Structure formats: C-alpha cells, structure tokens
C-alpha cells in the first residue's frame, strides 16, 4: 500500500460544449478500495470510464500501472489487460455461454490454453457462487446471476484493478445483496477497486476512501467515517441527507 497504481492529474472531458469533467486529480494506491458517489450527471461514470479508455479524456494525464494513457493503441491495450470492468447493464455476450463469456478474454487476449482458461474460469464461477450455470446462456440467468458472471468475466483476465460502474443499479432489490456479497469478498482480497455506487452500506463496510463528485469536480474525499459523520462541504451533506433519508 505505497506507490499509486492510478494517477490522474487535472483530467478534463467535454461532450461537445458540455464540460463533463472539469479537472479531476486522484491518486489510487495499490489495494485501495475507493467508492465514488454523487448526483447523476456529476461525471462519476465518465471518470471511471476514462481509466480504461472507454471515454477519451481531452486534457490532463492518466497513468495506470506505470503506463500513460495516450492515443497509442499499444498503451490502451496494455492498460485494458490490467483493468477489469463491470457495467450497470452487465453487457454479457448473449450468443455465448457463461463459460465462453468468461474464457473469451483469457483465450483471445492472454493467449492461454483453452483447458487452463476453463479451469480458471470454473474456479471464478465457484467464487461468485454459480458454477452450475456454466453452460447456460446469459438470457437464462437472473439479473443478479448475470452480474456475477460479469464480475467473473472481468476477473478472468486477472486484472490488477477492477472498475465497477453502478453494478447494482439495474438489479431487483432482492438480487443486490448477492452481488454486493461478491464485491465485499473481492474488496477484502486486496485487489484495487474503483466503485461507482450509491450502496452506502457497502461503502461504509469496505471503502478505504470515499470520493464525492458533483458537476464534474471532486468536491470532497476521505474515509467513510469522515464523509459520513463529518462532511465538510454543504453539497456533500445535502446529497447524503437525500440518499440516506429514505
């Protein structure tokens, strides 16, 4: 837990005229679990999507695992190898079985043998609790199961960093817990995680640091303790009171 694995300095992003990220600077240490929260449209999803270049930043520097994100496709490819991502809408490949979804990256990108990839994938499916679904298609699974497959798929590349973009927002309430349990176990395993979520219980339990986004800026960051009980900024207080009141 010493040197930063992700360094962002003054990151800006525009969509046409709209200034989505207005100078984000953040350092993430190896093994750190960071929860990013804030109102919708505040740029939190955009920000974590710049880290694996699903969105291009137009100004500033992003360095991931010692590699700077530039237009060089080799750098982008190298970073994507080390960064796994879990989406709000799961984005599983519907024409492939669960097993094929999970082994695709290891076989095609890591160039591992099929047998080795399937062995590792099976272990991961056991870890997320659905080994018995390995040969079904995503469409046959519940939302919670699909999201757990998506987590296994990202983990199969053995990434150093995991990005979660609102992983429970599209789930029915009774399925949120099964996904959060997997994420909690993952957080305790020591992998670096950036999680965009409004699950404050999860944040309190596992986050090393919480970062509050609003209008494309980091308004406040600190330990869950600080942010929950001693927020400095009014906007943070207001937002927390809104999401915690119900």
């Amino acid at each position, binding site marked *: 837990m010493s040197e930063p694995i992700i360094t962002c300095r003054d990151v800006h992003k525009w969509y046409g005229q709209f200034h989505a990220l207005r100078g984000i600077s953040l350092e993430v240490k190896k093994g750190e679990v960071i929860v990013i929260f804030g109102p919708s449209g505040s740029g939190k999803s955009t920000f974590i999507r710049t880290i694996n270049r699903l969105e291009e930043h137009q100004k500033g520097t992003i360095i991931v695992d010692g590699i700077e994100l530039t237009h060089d496709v080799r750098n982008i*490819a190298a970073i994507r190898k080390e960064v796994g991502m879990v989406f709000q809408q799961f984005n599983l490949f519907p024409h492939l079985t669960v097993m094929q979804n999970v082994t695709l990256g290891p076989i095609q990108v890591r160039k591992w043998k099929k047998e080795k990839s399937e062995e590792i994938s099976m272990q991961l499916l056991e870890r997320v609790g659905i080994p018995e679904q390995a040969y079904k298609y995503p469409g046959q699974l519940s939302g919670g199961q699909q999201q757990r497959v998506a987590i296994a798929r990202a983990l199969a590349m053995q990434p150093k960093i995991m990005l979660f973009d609102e992983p429970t927002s599209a789930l029915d309430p009774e399925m949120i817990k099964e996904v959060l349990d997997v994420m909690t176990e993952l957080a305790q395993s020591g992998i670096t995680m950036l999680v965009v979520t409004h699950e404050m219980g999860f944040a309190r339990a596992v986050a090393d640091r919480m970062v509050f986004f609003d209008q494309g800026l980091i308004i406040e960051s600190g330990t869950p303790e600080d942010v929950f009980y001693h927020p400095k900024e009014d906007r943070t207080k207001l937002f927390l009171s809104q999401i915690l009141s119900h």
Partner: protein
Amino acid sequence: MTTQLSSVSEVLPPPTERYTILGWLHKNLFSSWFNSILSIVAGSFVAVVLVGIIKWVFVSAQWAVVNDNIALYMKGQYPGAQDWRLWVLIYLAALLVGLMWSSYFHRVDVIAWVLVSIFLVLAIWLLLLGKAAWWKLLLVDGFGIVGFSLGQRFPNVSKRLTILLLLLYMPLVLLIIRGFGTDGFIPQIGTNLWGGLLLSLLLAIIGIVFSFPIGVLLALGRQSQMPALKTLSIIYIEVIRGVPLITLLFMGQLMLPFFLPAGISIDRVIRAVVAIIMFAAAYMAENVRGGLQSIPVGQYEAADAIGLSGYRKMLNIILPQALRTVIPVLVGQFIGLFKDTSLVALVGLLDLLGIARGILANPSYIGRQLEVFVFIALIYWIFSYAMSYAARRLEISLGVGER
C-alpha cells in the same frame, strides 16, 4: 381444510379441445352468416380456378415442348458425351448432403423423407416413360443414403470433414464442369456451352458465395473510423445501388470490351458473374449494416474492456450477433439474387430463361409459351422455397429472436 386446499392446487390439465370436421367447419368457416357467405364465395372462386388449372395441366397443355428438351433446360448445350461429369457432381452433392444430415441433424426427419421421395418419384416416372436415365436419379438417393450412413459410422470425424468437403466442393465443381486440355480424360468445355439450370445455379451460387464476404467487408468499411475506407465504401455502395442490375450486365457485356486492350478478352460468363457479385455485394453491405446497428453499444464496450482487439471484437462479438439478426433479410436477398440471374438472358447468355426463349424461337413450338414459362417458374419456385425453408430451420437452430 389444508388437505382440501392441496388437492385443489394440484395442476389441472388444460381443457381438451375436441376437433371434429363439422366443429372445425363451424368454427372457422361458418361462424356467422356473413362469414358463411364469404366462405361460399371464396370457395367457389378457388374451385373454379383449380378446375381450370387442372384442366389445362392434364388436357389442353402440350408438354412435348418440355419433355423433348429436358436436357436443354437442365444443362444447355453442354455436350451429352460429358454428362457423366455433371452426374458425378450431383452424386457428390448427394453424398455431402447425406453426410451433413447425419452430422448436424442426427436423424431422418420428414424433410429427409421428402427429399428422398422426390428423386424416387422422378425415377419411377422416368421408368414409366421408358427413359433410360431413371437409374441415374435413383443413384442420387443411393449416394445420399451412403453419405448418411458414413456420417453415422464415423460421428467423430464427420462434422469437420463435412465442412472441409463443402469448402472443397465449390472449386471442384468449376474444375470438373470446365475441364482442361483439348483431349484427355475431361476435355475443356467452353462457357458458351454452359446453360440452362446448370448456368443459373452456378451464377447464383458463385454470386452468393462471393458477394456475401465482400458485402460484410463493405459494411464494416462503411462503419469504420478510417475516413478513406469509409468514403470509398459509401461511394461504392451508393453508386452500385443507384444502378439497375441489367445496366451493369450490359456494361459488362458490351462496354467492357472497348476499354480492354486489343487481344485481351474476358469470358462472357465471368463478366456476368462479376456484375452480379458487384451488384449483390452493395445490397448485402446495407443489410449487414442494419444488423451491425442493432448491436447495443454495451457489447462494443464490454469487448473493449476485456481488451479484445478491433478485429477480434468484430469476429467474436459483433458479427456473430449482427449476422444472426439479419438472416431473414439476407436469405430474402439470396433468393432475389437467384431469380435475378435470369436477367443474363437479356444479354445473350443461355441460362434457364435464355434456353427457354431459345426453345420458343423454334417454329415447331409456336404458341407453347405458357407450358415453358410455367415449367421454368416451377423450377425457380422449388429452389427459392428450398432456400427459404432452409433459412427458417437455420434461424430456429440458432435461436434468432431469443437473447
């Protein structure tokens, strides 16, 4: 109380509907006085038309124009002494179909029986007419059955072998039909002698086989980020789509020779095939593009996030889903392409339609247009329907529509 409840909650079978002929008639044709009138009017119309058709087919039509020229319809002026080459190819095809059936469908179903009985019936018919070719047709069934049992005997090798053989079959067909050298085992037979159904099928199959990958590449080109590639693809697609196929065929047959240096000439059939491929590829590209656009952005993002390179993403994630959604449209286009090959008759090639026109030009067949055109229409229909049926089976087996 609880016991009563549990007995009630037992799953009841759905109420059975009893079908009787009268019941069916009442329900579907005579449910109200208005429907009854409609049924009677429509029924009598159908009856009149049917009687007319049957009368024409069995009484007034003179089928000699078809019967006497069946070889011409099938293969044009391809020399009779070389017919065995075509039969060999047909037997190989039958063998392959049998092999495919056992390795992909695993069982003999209704369609297999229909296929087998078509050839059986044709063979018996020829036998009754006293023609010598009947056993050749029977052999088609024989080879099909041999292929099927081979597939059953060696289930482990058959799947890959079938694909390999299918890939080898196409070039083999062209090689054997064309031949090489002047004398020898299989002397060369110029394309000017290829004709009839043989030529139509060759034009259609080569057109489909080549225009499909070119169309996919054009669709990807049109979607690509590279401006030069994108512009070229758009220009190609829009120019070709703005021109009727017949124009392309005429340009190929009449104008191309002017642009080529003296002494160089390209085979007429090849010129027609190239025109068909160019034309079909542009339409194929637009259909495939439709499929590409139906893929959600999330699929691209998920593939990117895993770290798949551009072409691996296309090959593994995007194209399989995109093509699967456009199978119905693509098959519609294949069928259209098959029927469009009849346009080559207008530039002087003797395909099925060209041969038909040639036969009708013979003074002894004056007034026999209806027989001839009904006959070739039936042939076009059989092949088109077979394609459409095969596509529906493919769709079901690929699970189109269920994600």
